[in-house]
Each structure stands twice: as structure tokens, then as C-alpha cells.
């Protein structure tokens, strides 16, 4: 018998600031090609010397993780599982530039040490002195969903009672410049929100979202996570059977999905996948979020936070509605994300 899994705490650092109750309602659509995350003060969490040494991503990750643990009332999780698409970019770039600019001489180890992809998960464990299971997934747009799937399986199958799962991606100048050069990121000077997007590329950002998951239902519980699936490739015509199979495995009828949360990001070519997907649910409102947190490999983690908040509040802030459809109650919510037609993921959630 699979056990229920609840989201009992959320933490985030985003272009709209840190996670709080009014974050979604107050958020404004981003219209710049690259938006940095609004940083909180780290003084209470991290020693001053460490604050100077740590990259944005590590600090954001530690902050959001602690926020999620605090709200979920988890001191030491049975597992710490993170995802990141591009890893600790700041330190990777710093070390690489030093190698190239100084012909492999005069190097210091700090940025190399902090460049490994699992640094955020490791630093969280180190801070908590948490000796439990510790994994980091690094698979582009399903980095977070891989972490979530891992955590979910452990909780459902009684291998863990509490799990900290989250994701983090940070901006670094050169890599983002390269992504702009190949048209992934919109050109400098363009001012388009996701809804207004006409030019090639999308608005990028950085951020982190963490969740305190537990098998216990508490007054803090936002929602239940029922299942997650990921797939590397899918042509547009296969979206329907992909969704159908997933819902069937979970014993849920398509018409009982009350809302869908989609990763629409303003990509004029590949947003058509989301159209195909939302067409499968003609009654359900479609909710989007990348217009407020931007695109990065793990921004879909924020989509899960959005869905959790909506299931808890039983209402959707108007600024997150992609279409004009309405629902009277939110029981089942289905999330869909992909990037450039690859790395498709579905997450099924339930109110609790």
C-alpha cells in the first residue's frame, strides 16, 4: 500500500522575492530577457565569511531549504534531494576563466570546490549535520522532477518519513550570454512578457524552490503529490497518449482534472506543446507561472509551489490565469512541463 505524500512546507527565492503568502498575488510579469533573483538577507543563516565565499545559488538554496523545513516543521529530513540544470555556474565559470586567462597557473581551489553540481545539497547537509541520503539530479528541464520522483518513491514505499526536495539554478554572465547568442534567451533591448512574446527566445531568470515533504497530514499541509513521470522525447501527437497513460495508472479520469499548471514560457515555437496539452482539458483553467519567475532549467519547481498554493487556497490569483476558464473547486491538478520539445514531465496533485 502506497502512503500519501504531503507538501508541508515551501521555500523559494525568485525574481519576485522570497516565498510568502502574498507572493503570487503580488507578482508582476517579467519583461526583460534576463532577471536576477531578489536576494534576501542571509545574515541569520550563514556566517559572514561564508556569505562572501558562497555563490548566489548556494545561498539561495540554503535559504529556501530552511524556509521549507521550518514551515514543514522538519529538523532533520530522511533525505535531501536536489535538482539543477546548469549547476554551480558562477564558480564553474570563475574557475574556468582562471584556467584559460592564466594558462593553468595561479589557481586557488575555492571555486573548484564549490563548482560541483551537488554543492547546494552538500552545503544544506553540512549546515544541518544531516547524514541521511543525499542526491543531486542534473538533467536539464527534468532535474527537479527527477528529484521529486526519487523523494516521492521513498516516501510512498516507506523508505523515508520526511524528505527535503528542491532545485536551484543561478545566472552567470558568460553562459547566459552564450544562451542569448544561440537565441535561447531573448535579445537585449526586447521588452516582452510571456503573453506578449513575439520575438525568438524567452525571458530567463534564476531561482530556487524547496519543499518539505512528509507522509503526515498536518495543519500546514498544502496538498498531496500523487505521482510524477518524465520522458526524454515526445512528438506533439504523442502528448495525448502520454497523459492518458499517466492518468490511467493513477486511476484518474481526464474530466476530473480541475486545473492544469503549465510551463508556458513565451517560446513562439515550442509553446504549441502546451496548446496541445491544454486542449485535452477543455473545461479546466490553465495556470502559468514562468511569466513571473522566468525560464531556467528548474523553474518548473516553482510551478509545483504555485499548484500547492492554489490547492490550499482553493483559488487562483487572476494574474496567473492563462485562459478565462473557471472552476468551482480544485481537487485534482495536473502539471505539465517541457523545454524545446524535450524533457516532458507530468505531476499529479490532489487537495488534502
Amino acid at each position, binding site marked *: 500500500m502506497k502512503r500519501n505524500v504531503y507538501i508541508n512546507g515551501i521555500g523559494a527565492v525568485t525574481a519576485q522575492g522570497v516565498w510568502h503568502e502574498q507572493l503570487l498575488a503580488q507578482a508582476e510579469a517579467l519583461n526583460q530577457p534576463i532577471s536576477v533573483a531578489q536576494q534576501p538577507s542571509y545574515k541569520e543563516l550563514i556566517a559572514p565569511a561564508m556569505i562572501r565565499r558562497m555563490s548566489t545559488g548556494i545561498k539561495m538554496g540554503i535559504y529556501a531549504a530552511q524556509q521549507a523545513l521550518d514551515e514543514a516543521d522538519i529538523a532533520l529530513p530522511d533525505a535531501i534531494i536536489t535538482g539543477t540544470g546548469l549547476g554551480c555556474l558562477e564558480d564553474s565559470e570563475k574557475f574556468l*576563466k582562471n584556467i584559460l586567462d592564466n594558462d*593553468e597557473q595561479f589557481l586557488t581551489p575555492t571555486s573548484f570546490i564549490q563548482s560541483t553540481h551537488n554543492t547546494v545539497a*552538500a*552545503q544544506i547537509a553540512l549546515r544541518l549535520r544531516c547524514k541521511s541520503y543525499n*542526491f543531486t539530479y*542534473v538533467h536539464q528541464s527534468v532535474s527537479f522532477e527527477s528529484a521529486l520522483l526519487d523523494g516521492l518513491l521513498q516516501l510512498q514505499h516507506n523508505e523515508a518519513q520526511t524528505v527535503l526536495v528542491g532545485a536551484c539554478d543561478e545566472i552567470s554572465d558568460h553562459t547566459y550570454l552564450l544562451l542569448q547568442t544561440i537565441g535561447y534567451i531573448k535579445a537585449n533591448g526586447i521588452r516582452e512578457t510571456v503573453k506578449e512574446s513575439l520575438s525568438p527566445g524567452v525571458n530567463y531568470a534564476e531561482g530556487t524552490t524547496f519543499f518539505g515533504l512528509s507522509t503526515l497530514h498536518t495543519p500546514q499541509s498544502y496538498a498531496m503529490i500523487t505521482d510524477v513521470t518524465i520522458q526524454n*522525447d515526445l512528438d506533439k501527437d504523442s502528448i495525448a497518449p502520454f497523459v492518458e497513460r499517466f492518468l490511467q495508472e493513477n486511476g484518474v479520469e481526464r474530466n476530473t482534472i480541475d486545473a492544469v499548471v503549465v510551463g508556458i514560457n513565451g517560446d513562439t515555437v515550442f509553446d504549441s506543446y502546451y496548446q496541445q496539452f491544454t486542449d485535452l482539458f477543455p473545461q479546466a483553467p490553465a495556470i502559468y507561472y514562468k511569466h513571473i519567475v522566468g525560464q531556467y532549467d528548474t523553474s518548473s519547481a516553482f510551478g509545483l509551489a504555485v499548484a500547492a498554493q492554489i490547492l490550499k487556497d482553493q483559488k487562483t490569483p487572476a494574474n496567473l490565469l492563462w485562459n478565462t476558464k473557471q472552476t468551482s473547486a480544485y481537487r485534482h491538478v495536473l502539471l505539465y512541463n517541457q523545454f524545446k520539445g524535450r524533457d516532458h514531465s507530468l505531476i499529479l496533485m490532489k487537495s488534502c
Partner: protein
Amino acid sequence: MASGVAITGIGMISSIGKNVEENLQSLLAERHGISRVENFHTRQKETIMVGEIKLSNAALIRQLSLPEDNNFTRTALLGACAAKEALASANIQDMQAYRTGLISSTSVGGMDFTERHFYAYLEDSTLHKYITSHDAGDSSHKIAAYLGLQGLVTTISTACSSAANAIMLGARMIRSGKLDRAIVGGTDALSKFTINGFNTLMILSDTYCQPFDQNRKGLNLGEAAAYLVLESDELVKKDNKKVLAYLSGYGNANDAFHQTASSEDGEGAFLAMQKAFRMAGLAPQDIDYINVHGTATPNNDLSEGRAMMRLFGNQVPEFSSTKAFTGHTLAAAAAIEAVYSILALQYQTVFANLHFATPMEEFQLQPQTKTKRQAIQHVLSNSFGFGGNCSTLIFSKA
């Protein structure tokens, strides 16, 4: 776990062989693959030794029959070679017949091309095809496409323990019924980035590495890729598959001590081994051979040795580090050592710990220094990484 998860295929490439058979012959003959860097320029060339695969990217591309305009990084090329062999070894032709996943791992990803073209990308658009091959997931995508795999594809990066964790996740996906088959392992190419990184940490040996030796001077880096095919019991029965060995236990724990160094008493390693025993339903005395992490850094071997003493007391079974053969192949290390553990079970052989001369002063542990035939029922394999990551796998005879 009753008998464990069945392993039906293995494939690998390392500096001691382009496939499993060549690796086996090198191991049995005690022939290492450590040399100077030849495939690319680095200022550290004369001061370090590495386990480099003496095949150019062009040769690997030919071997894989890839189109001219491909944008495979070396990490992807090595991975594709090993994964292809693993599938053939498991006698899998129809990728779509069952729910099949690829769980790969890498630490360096496409850094080998990024470090070559980092600045040139801005000027030369003919290089742009490599920009998106930088991230760690890219090689897994390429390997999946090369194998014709559509399904669950993901990548793990927990530094030098990565592939052990990929193997673990694959086993969990099969046990929970999410997958019928999983191709699991890791791939890492040598790069200037990692060479210089480890060099700044001053843990690279200027000569052949000497795991568990009193006078060890550090590690040799290496490059490699290896994959295992795991299959569910139902498939094994239904298709009458030959099982090479079973993955009977695994454990993952965090040392939570330091970002790069291991704790003095090997707490993380101890916990990982303990968890693996619990899952396998085995006791320390059931283990006949340990393929240790044994990087030959002063810190690792002391910490790992102490963890082994805590668990095995004075009854530490035969053990050896095969890193003196291959170098430390980072994310791929646990995958190639998983293949070696399976070979140890199949051929009832403990492989040699090369270059060992003097026991460490802290304890009396002595690795097996010669190829040795003996009865082996269970093999334990350790892998540890930066970030306190400790992983243990236990393999059992089919």
C-alpha cells in the same frame, strides 16, 4: 530485498580496455593504463599521470558510426560506446518492447568542449552546436537517442560517487515497478578543468598512484564510461534471461563533515555500508571481496580504512582498489568498479591492488596485491565523493 535486482548486461570503456573483455584481460594480467596526457594540451602534462583512453574523438565517432555534423562531447562518445556494449551484452534489440529507462551520471559533462571554445563561441558560429552540449544532461540525451530509447532519462551528479547513485536509482525504479529495464551507469572524460581542480587541491600524484600505501602521494585522474542493464524478475523469467549477478544491497549516506574532505572516522562511509548490509540482509562476514574506493589520497584511504575497521573489525575480507589500473574516473568510477565487481563474481577472482608496498601506520590493513582466485559469493563496492557523498553497492553471485 530477496535476491536483489538482476543484472543482465555490462559494457565499459576505460584506459585498460575498449570493452569488458579487454578490461578483464588487463585486470587478470595486472596491466595498468596509466600514462601521460596525450589527447589534449595541458600545462600539467609533465607533472601528472592519468588513465587516458588512447582513442581520439574522431576514432570514437567512427566506431559509433555517427554522422559528420554530430555534436557529441567526449563524455557522450565514451558513454555511447559503453552503453551500446551493455545492451548487446543483455541481448536487447527492441528498445520499445518494455518500459526502459536510462539513468546516467557525469561530473564533467561537456566541459571538454566548453574549455576549448569558451571564448571562441562568441566569434565563431560554426562552434555553436556545442554550446548546448555543456550541461550534464546532454550526454544522457545523446546516449538515449543513440540507443533509440524513449522513456525515462535522467542524470545524477554527486561528484565521484555519481554512478553508484545512478545504479541505486535504477534498482529502486525497477523494484517500485516504474521501469521494467534500466540502463544505469556513468561517463566522464578527462578535462583541463578537473585536472587543474584536483591539482589546486594538491591531491594528484606525480607518479603511479598507490592505494592504501603508507607513502601514497595522491590520485591519478582517469576517464571512462560503464553501464549495467538491470531487469525486473518478471522479465528475467519471461524472457529466460541470463543473469550475470544480482545487486543485492545499496546504501547512501552523507558524511556531513566537509565539502571535500572525508571525516577521520569515516562516518559517512560507515553509514553507507551499514545501510547496504541491512538492505541485502547480509552481515559483514558474508562479504568475500571489497572493491574499495581507494583513491590513494592520504585522506580517503585513511578515512575509508577506518570505516572498514569499524564495520569489519579485525576480519576485513580481501580488498583492493582498482584505481591503480584505471585512475580515478570520477562520476564513472562506481560504474566501472561495479563491472569489475561483477567480473570478480563471474570469474571468482580478486583483482590486484597495484603499486602497494608499505602498510599504513594507522592500521594493519593490507590490500590484495596479486590477482587471486578464490570463492566469492558477495562483493562490496564503495564510492565516495565531494559534498560528503558516500555510496555502497553489494553485488551477489547469480
